[in-house]
């Protein structure tokens, strides 16, 4: 999943650095993630993993690292499967 997230980051987030060089817990905002780019990131995640991120989960923290996005996707996928 984190490989897919890195690919999505490189495609839609327009970071200042290559996502491959980022640790799973690296601060993406510090890497140049803009609030506008989070919108595209959100749509790409929803498309890739077949989930819809509810408004209650949509915070700055959600997009703050690869770890936090992976945790959210896992949670949504589990909720969907249940």
């Amino acid at each position, binding site marked *: 999943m984190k490989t897919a997230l890195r690919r999505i980051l490189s495609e839609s987030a327009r970071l*200042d*650095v290559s996502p491959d060089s980022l640790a799973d817990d690296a601060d993406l*905002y*510090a*890497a*140049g993630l*803009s*609030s*506008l780019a*989070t*919108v*595209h990131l*959100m*749509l790409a995640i929803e498309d890739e993993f077949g989930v*819809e991120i*509810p*408004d*209650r989960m*949509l*915070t*700055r*923290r*959600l997009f*703050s690292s690869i770890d936090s996005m992976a945790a959210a996707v896992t949670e949504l996928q589990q909720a969907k499967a249940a």
Partner: protein
Amino acid sequence: MNAPLLDPAAPAASPAPAALTAIEPEPGWRAAAQRCAAVAAQFADAVDSEARFPVEAFAALKHERLLSAMVPTACGGAGLSLADVGAICETLAQGCASTAMIYAMHQIQVACIDEHGGASPWHRQLLAQLSEHQWLFASATSEETIGGNMRTSACAVELDGARFRIEKLAPTISYGAHADAILVTARRTAESAAADQVLIVALREKTLLEHRGVWDSMGMRGTCSEGFRLVATGLAEQILPTPFADIADQTMLPVSHTLWASVWTGVAADAVNRAKAFFRAQARSKPGSVPPAGMRLAQAVGLLQMMQARLQVALDAARAAHAARLNESQADAPLAAMLGFASDMNTLKTSISSTALDVVQEVLMICGMAGYKNGTPYSVGRHLRDLYSAPLMINNDRIAQNTASLLLAQRPAAPGRA
């Protein structure tokens, strides 16, 4: 944005019944703004034709201590809210658009320092000095080779121990030659990415400004938005502690868009006043009939009222967003609300800037040749030329594209969905 101005004339916890005494006198700053607007109006044509800084209006603004209107009272200012400062901008714009725009741009810098440097002793001291000397602050966010995108920089802060140096080629620094301090964006360090920016307060006496171009423009000629090579030095404390990305999102953009919209609304309002005067004079000369331009005047007045109402909505939204920011951690704030606020500010800017032009076009049709000619009581050539800058100051096309992206994040609430 700040605590409202304490009205010294208001009765202090008076036990007297409120009935009939509730009508408060006009606050002093409103009358002061009107006096300044009268001075600005007197010199507006000269400022425009000579493309010079509105010195007389700024002498008046300093005399009335309106440059520190938004500075908190603890730092010697009047502590006015964003809405109050917007009202001052609107009033000034009825006299001279360049004066009002310079005043608005100055207040944007004050807001950034107050909101994001409030905890820093150096910046609080700066605001106190601004109040004491009625300093004028400008900004240098654009950069050659970068174009209009203020969210990236090529130049970088060079830190040497406790001191910094920046060198920036700025295609425009509005009234830069007349400012006492300039807020400059730059990359945090020479190694930082283009979007990893900080905002630095460069003081006049430690800043070299070398002219790189003249400001001979269609309108807003008094803003003297010339190009400069800027070389500033100073202490590392002068760098605002908050990353510029946050300053821009939370303060610079919303304050810019609301105060610019106030200016444009004021320019349109003055034009509509000219149309009303023309219409009355026309009706007077032919008693018993309504002149043909009547429908256009009704249209112009209706549009102006919509602008004023839209501006009010934006000021309320800005106040609510500011309050929300103080009450909850940024990381857990709902993103949908933040993006919604950003798109609200965007549409404010695009719609007020284009509607203001529509209003003045109507006024020109109403006043006809008297409006087209310069130097009549009904002239609106300057108004139109000044307002043509409105859709261009951060190009409306670029903003609309940005808004469209923001709208992607707004999902309509559907019944039965999370």
